């Protein structure tokens, strides 16, 4: 009898120049240990945003990337976009 299992893994994490952290979670369906299907869910996190509930490895990268300077610059960029 075949065994179906589901695994979730963060298979991509990208930090953009302005500090946005993008990560991709792959959900893999395995049949007897061999992958038969895969779906993706992407998340983007902006400098300074609340990280509650985010994966620990993503949080670590955000905390390293989001210096005060990066957060300030990102907030300034948002402010520059107002009412344009």
């Amino acid at each position: 009898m075949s065994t179906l299992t589901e695994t979730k893994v963060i298979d991509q994490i990208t930090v953009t120049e302005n500090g946005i952290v993008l990560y991709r979670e792959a959900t893999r369906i395995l049949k007897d240990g061999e992958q038969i299907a895969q779906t993706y869910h992407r998340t983007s996190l902006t400098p300074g945003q609340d990280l509650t509930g985010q994966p620990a490895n993503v949080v670590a990268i955000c905390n390293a990337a989001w210096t005060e300077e990066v957060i300030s610059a990102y907030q300034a960029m948002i402010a520059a976009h107002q009412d344009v």
Partner: protein
Amino acid sequence: MSLILDGSNGITFPNGVSQSLAGLPLTGGTLTGALTVGGILNTGSTGQLQFPATQNPSSNANTLDDYEEGTFTPTITATSGSMVMPNQQGVYTKVGNMVTCTFWVQFTSSTLSGSPVIMSGLPFTATGSSRPSPSIRPSGFASATNVIGGWLPGGTTYIQIQKYSAGNTSDVSGSDIPGGGEYGGTIVYMTT
């Protein structure tokens, strides 16, 4: 190394030798060099073209280098306050550097204040400064608020929701969202 498949001449190998396709046991294998197809590319009964899970980016304007489908979680926020959002659904398809997203956020109450109100969580950062705008179906905004799609600033992953009045656009603020409603739509934009 390159291998050339041509409908008229069969296979041309790197040493220049040509051979007819008939009778060759072409049932599998991996070609690591360039493959030039001189005729129609027929993928047979599978009908599929598979790209690697991680993009192999090309700077050639005539090269398709990525394909991906997936989901994302759109979230509406403002400078302060919050929303109760029982439904946050987003799906995307990326073909090359073009991303198409459809999204739907349903909210049942809001304490948002300040502006801009944004819908964040898009799956890829936008490139360029062309200000792509979504087509939307808003509901639940203040009656005097003629909400339009808004725009997606370059280098970001959010749509800045805007309204229209007397020939001008301006940002939606939290006070424009008194209670429950929806913000759904589609946006197409460029990424890397």
